[in-house]
């Protein structure tokens, strides 16, 4: 005789970390190389609209033309446009755990005219404000991770 249906609900945890190998391609690779070898930020410029393409890429999406090799070196100084800070830890899939990162996350407008999302060295919420001037603090060793070669952006005087 078949028993009455049970109210128990079975759940199956799936814990599978998937390894990947991502290729940057040659255009983004140029940024990686300059960051690693010279602690510099570079990007390419569209031959038609003359906009800086960021991150560097093979095609200008607006003009639909090949972006070419007009490389421009950019200052690593900029202005904070907007920022936020974490109050409690969130899951980071590239780490495989909850991360309680204490550095604030900000959108920075580099002096060259492109926007960048990165961390701020200043952790005190009272001292954070939109419009503050910041500059990249580079890793001294073991570079080769592109924008992650910059530890964070530190505050500089106006």
């Amino acid at each position: 005789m078949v028993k009455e249906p049970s109210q128990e609900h079975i759940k199956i945890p799936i814990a599978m970390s998937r390894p990947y190998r991502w290729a940057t391609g040659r255009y983004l690779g140029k940024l990686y190389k300059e960051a690693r070898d010279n602690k510099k930020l570079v990007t390419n410029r569209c031959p038609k609209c003359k906009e800086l393409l960021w991150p560097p890429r093979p095609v200008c999406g607006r003009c639909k033309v090949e972006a070419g090799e007009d490389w421009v070196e950019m200052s690593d100084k900029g202005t904070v446009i907007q920022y936020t800070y974490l109050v409690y830890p969130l899951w980071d899939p590239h780490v495989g755990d909850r991360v309680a990162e204490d550095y604030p996350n900000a959108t920075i407008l580099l002096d060259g005219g492109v926007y960048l999302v990165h961390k701020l060295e200043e952790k005190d919420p009272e001292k954070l404000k939109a419009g503050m001037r910041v500059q990249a603090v580079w890793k001294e060793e073991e570079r080769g991770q592109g924008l992650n070669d910059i530890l964070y952006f530190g505050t500089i005087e106006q």
Partner: protein
Amino acid sequence: MANRVAIVGVGQTYHKSKRPDVSQPEMVNEAVRAALADAQLSMKDIESVFVGNMETFEGIYLPDHGLADEAGLFMKPGFKVATGGSSGGSAVVEGSNFVASGLFRTALVIGFEKQDAGDTTGAISAATTPVWGKGMARGALGEFAKQASTYMKQSGATEEHAAMVRLKADRGACRNPYAHLRLGLESVEEILKSGYLMWPLRLLDFCPQSSGACAVILAAEEEARKITNKPVWIADHITVHQEPFRAGTFGDPTGLETYSEDVAATKLYKRNGISNPRKDIDMAETYEPSNWQEMMLYEYYHFCEKNEGWKLIEKGITEIEGEFPVNPSGGVIATNPIGATPVIRVAECALQIRGDAGEHQVTRDVKTAVATALGGPNWTVMVLLRRFL
């Protein structure tokens, strides 16, 4: 369009935080059966099936395969649509295109997400490749938090205005039996007491992680008129994408660039003779993941001038009884099973046009409504619905 397309049935599940009692296919099946019952059709009448879902969220690659039987896909044409948060909206567009082509008389469009199955922030953060954005992405929360901080500075909106939007959403949700968060919030002060999640977003400011599904049935004009005497016409739809990497994962959160919403609204309104949106359209269901976003979306969709979104909420214009109701169902802030959410927007607009929204039916007579979807990185889908063509 070659064929005119109408919505002839809608159905959704009671959206909850967790549904341990059902598998994904069983949950989708509930919404499908509800839509078939609403249209008084059987699965035999459905000629194509589209499923909108963000698959990283449940950890299942190719979710439509596992769903095939329960979604009615067995031996029928159709496919999964995944465009981030706008997946459901894109699925409605696909279904509508299939029917408009004249090759199919009906389409079943399903959006679903079973968010109890995974970690939402983790999944969204996986949208950034580690070659650009590793360790920087804090999911949607980070991007929307930054947008909110800029909006406060630029427009003069205050945290009180954000709280007022939250109250409006809760009032609508409490009148909508399918909504997820029905909190009975009473005052702005109560909301301002809740803690920050990621400054300046508070716990209450952001949408929940819901598990649910929503289905709509589309039919070509000849079929639609036979099936129901209250067809809701899909008068037009538009999809605009924006380049994602200009300033982070979600397009340009600074507000200094043209948003895909702005471009979509301009084109859609122009080709439909809409010159005064709050007058020519009767209500809207928008995809606003946070209360701050709702105020900004009022501006991007041209419901008001730039930097004046907060005025609409201050004056009560977007309430259920107001002159231009927005999100009377409680919106996304109250219910967000991501893949289902844009389909819920379309379904809710359809219910309002039919006069079948029950307790959250708006006071203004709804002849024209607009449903929107937002996909990171900044994809916009807008669907224009009308009672008469």
